[in-house]
């Protein structure tokens, strides 16, 4: 457990030191989301109707951005070998990396999602449900993303392969996440959608790090 926290603090320290990379995902999220009012027009009815979808799609794409470097830098400079020899099993390394991706990318996106939803004229009473869905969904994005990042590690043009691998995997997350916010905006119960998201998170929490750990072992070989 001590080594798990050591991997996490190491990654957070590196992200802090490379602040521009960390901020890039957040800026990407805010900029792409603000393109929609410009393209569709500021009419509150249209915009408010599609706001949950916009927030979800933009958050999903923004979370992909840092995945390429999640293990890439460590593989190139030899740090990944040392991490795997630290005495923590490979799935533990992967789990720590997922958590650091969530802290560095997921949490800022969550914080920015509220203001962005308000900007897009989303009905106010649906915003808490949107954020609750994103809380579960961002965790899932980090887990699936870590798994995909470890699988494409070492592959030529892995950066291109990565979205092709992650996006189909996270479509259920997108469907239920956006549906939860839609249901809340339409006055229906969002509970079943959120419960399904929670179930997916509960399944991905143990399975994705296991797959990612195997991917890491294969990448260093």
């Amino acid at each position, binding site marked *: 457990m001590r080594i798990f926290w050591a991997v996490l603090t*190491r990654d957070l320290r590196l992200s802090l*030191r490379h602040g521009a990379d960390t901020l890039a995902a957040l800026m990407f999220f805010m900029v792409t989301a603000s393109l929609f009012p410009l393209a569709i027009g500021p009419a509150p009815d249209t915009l408010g109707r599609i706001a949950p979808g916009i927030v979800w799609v933009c958050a999903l794409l923004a979370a992909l951005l840092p995945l390429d470097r999640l293990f890439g830098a460590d593989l190139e400079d030899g740090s990944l*070998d*040392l991490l795997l020899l630290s005495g923590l099993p490979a799935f533990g390394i992967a789990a720590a990396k997922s958590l650091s991706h969530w802290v560095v990318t997921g949490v800022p996106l969550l914080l920015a999602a509220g203001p962005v939803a308000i900007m897009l004229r989303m009905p106010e009473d649906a915003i808490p449900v949107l954020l609750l869905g994103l809380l579960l969904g961002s965790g899932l994005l980090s887990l699936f993303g870590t798994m995909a990042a470890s699988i494409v590690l070492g592959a030529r043009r892995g950066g291109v392969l990565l979205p092709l691998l992650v996006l189909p995997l996270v479509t259920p997350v997108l469907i239920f996440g956006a549906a939860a916010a839609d249901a809340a905006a339409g006055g229906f119960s969002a509970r079943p959608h959120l419960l399904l998201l929670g179930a997916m998170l509960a399944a991905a929490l143990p399975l994705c790090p296991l797959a990612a750990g195997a991917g890491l072992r294969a990448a260093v070989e």
Partner: protein
Amino acid sequence: MLTAEGVAVFRGERLVFRDLFLTVPSGGALILAGANGSGKSTLLRLLAGLVRPAAGQILWEGADAFADLAAHGERVAYLGHQDAVKPGLTVTENLLFAATVSRRSIATALEAVGLDALADLPSRMLSAGQKRRLAIARLVLSTAQLWLLDEPTLGLDTASIDRFGALLGQHRAGGGIVVAATHVPLPLPGATELRLS
């Protein structure tokens, strides 16, 4: 004691070596020699558990070393081709992870490689030799029994090589094992040599 029993390794479709036997007792040292591409680095990575053998077994104190890969990782300190130095962190910060794992003092390790005066310098300012010394400081920090070194003296000046020799001696005196791949003579008295072809 580290033993390899008839190991064979493939890299992709190519057989790197086969039927390889070796034994290194506690306190012993083994030097891997051979031409470029003869499999020295692959053998080191195999002993570290990063590469899996296609046949044969690696034994540690007579038991299968790879039965628990994470536990084997704790026995190994690996110094690869690359120094694994993060340019954005200071010299001390680069060692924080290794120090947390082993609970040893960073200051002592930096002193052992003569980098104590540069402790707060950003690592991108270091020369190639100084980065190598920083990677060696990581060996000093670790509590591992088995040191696996890939061209450890690459880029080091004579004074640093002497200091490194003393560190190797200390490690072996404490019952540690050193396996090193090299093209140049290393300060490892009494080491056996294994020539790969």
